[in-house]
């Protein structure tokens, strides 16, 4: 039996994975809840974020990438929104899935065209390199930074969604967008803002993940399925669902790999299937 430190380490790893997934899934799930739009290319935006961060970091250091990536990906989001997504709003989920599927293909090769096929990496700043003593173990400082960042963003979003006017408007829009429009809420503008913030968070996730993983063209594809699992388990459209889904995925995946390596990857899919059978709309859907 390994010592308690081992389990602390695994728990922190799980938490760190959860936070990364949260950054991606929250944007996707709120966009879906508000606009009923399934953006399969969300993972590709994350990959673009990682590439932008890597390029910027090569010039101006880690923090340049950290701040530039969300801005750049939000910019890309604006382009996509006005070029494609606004026109696809009225189409069924099938057409949306397919258009964003096409976007995955296109963005994949575009990143290859711009950044090449070789993996890129990012140097960590001195502040975040190294390890920190915590709960009796030495844990990489950068992973603690991701956990802290994730928790801070959860808190910020909970505040914005729960306590501010725009948050109330978003919740009203998720609940019933036609009714929200009747109440004088500019739903189109709301969609636009939420879409941009969702994209920015995807870009941020890419920038944050870049130093941990190597930056490759298909990193967007690799993260897409876990993100979709998170939002479907959690229930589409809700912050609570995204948090719960991320934590479930992070812990099941991490502890599954330790306790039952043979079953680890099947386990999470089996869990998803079980959730869909018992609660076909996820654990905490935005709409009852």
């Amino acid at each position, binding site marked *: 039996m390994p010592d308690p430190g081992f389990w602390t380490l695994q728990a922190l790893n799980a938490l760190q994975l959860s936070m990364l997934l949260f950054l991606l899934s929250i944007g996707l799930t709120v966009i879906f809840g508000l606009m009923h739009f399934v953006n399969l290319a969300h993972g590709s935006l994350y990959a673009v974020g990682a590439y932008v961060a890597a390029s910027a970091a090569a010039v101006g250091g880690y923090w340049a990438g950290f701040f530039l990536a969300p801005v750049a990906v939000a910019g890309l989001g604006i382009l996509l929104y006005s070029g494609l997504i606004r026109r696809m709003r009225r189409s069924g989920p099938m057409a949306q899935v*397919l258009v964003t599927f096409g976007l995955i293909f296109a963005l994949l090769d575009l990143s290859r065209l711009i950044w090449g096929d070789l993996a890129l990496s990012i140097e960590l700043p001195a502040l975040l390199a190294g390890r920190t003593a915590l709960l009796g173990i030495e844990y990489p400082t950068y992973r603690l930074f991701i956990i802290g960042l994730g928790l801070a963003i959860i808190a910020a979003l909970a505040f914005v969604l729960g306590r501010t006017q725009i948050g109330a408007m978003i919740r009203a829009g998720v609940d019933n967008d036609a009714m929200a429009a009747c109440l004088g809420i500019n739903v189109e503008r709301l969609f636009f803002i939420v879409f941009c913030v969702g994209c920015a968070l995807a870009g941020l996730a890419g920038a944050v993940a870049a130093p941990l993983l190597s930056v490759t063209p298909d990193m967007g594809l690799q993260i897409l399925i876990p993100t979709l699992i998170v939002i479907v388990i959690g229930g589409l459209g809700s912050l609570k669902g995204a948090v719960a889904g991320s934590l479930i995925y992070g812990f099941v995946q991490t502890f599954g790999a330790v306790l039952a390596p043979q079953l680890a990857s099947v386990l999470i899919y*089996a869990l998803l299937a079980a959730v869909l059978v018992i609660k076909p709309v996820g654990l905490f859907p935005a709409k009852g």
Partner: protein
Amino acid sequence: MFRHTPLRYGTLALLAALALFKAVTADYFGLEILTEILILAILVIALDMVAGFGGMVSLCHGALMGVGAFAYALLTVKAGLTPPLALAAAIGITGGAAWIIGAICARSHGIYFIMATLAFGQMAYSYVFQTPTFGGDDGLGGIARLDLTAFGIDLNDSRTFALFCLAALAASYCAIVGILRSGLGRSLTGIMHNEQRMRALGLTVWRVKADVFGLSGMIAGLAGALAAQHMMFISPGLLSWKVSGEALVVVILGGLGTLVGPIVGAAAFVLLKHEVSALTSYWHLVVGVILIAVVMSRANGIFGWIETRWTARKATRRTGPADAPLKEARTDA
């Protein structure tokens, strides 16, 4: 409801003639491409049966095909079964797996159905990928083709094998048309149009969905067993969700719910892939842009677009151009 129109019969005849011509005249490389098209066509008409006529947009048909391929390979290579028995078993196993997936996912709709089928597909993929018996990452080789020498047919000849796959496609097509015209298929179309009403009429909706999904799985299993025999080697990549996604793309490119369209789509997709990848290594970009353009154009794929134009022209001829109906003609499903 599925109907054959003169246009559909004509397209089928043209496709059959082209395939036969190619099968007789093509060189080795051409035959490889033809076989690839034929096997993909079997998979996508199986997918069109559930997606286009039942609204069950499945993202696990690639994985089902993979299950068929692995079942055939394991049963022949590891269990020593004779190829005909293994083929039948592969079809049965895939059909059973599909029936279970269909039964479990029957309550889910829209994006949740897509996600649920994706989950099952990935489950199969991860399992096969991680299990050493299945060859893991390396895959399985040395797969034998069906032995039909008793009938004077040698399937190890690539020309004969292409013809064999053409026959399999024709048989699958007839089977699907038969299913769609049966009571089961009629009820499936009813479910797609109005599931609540079918239930209120007394139909056990989940059973119909599961049954048709199972039948579709059997045909996907046949495609898988043929793919295994074609390449004589299989890897877990066959079960990846990208294959399922591509199958869906082919159905859409061709024309959802037209059954003939997806065959056209399969041919277009494979040819495009080979043509474009010969020119540039960025063929995903080309396919992505084409896919976006097709979906944004709101035409129902290549064949759907042709059908719309055809009906509009016929209507113009009948009524005169002055009062030609401007509204989009229905692509009848």
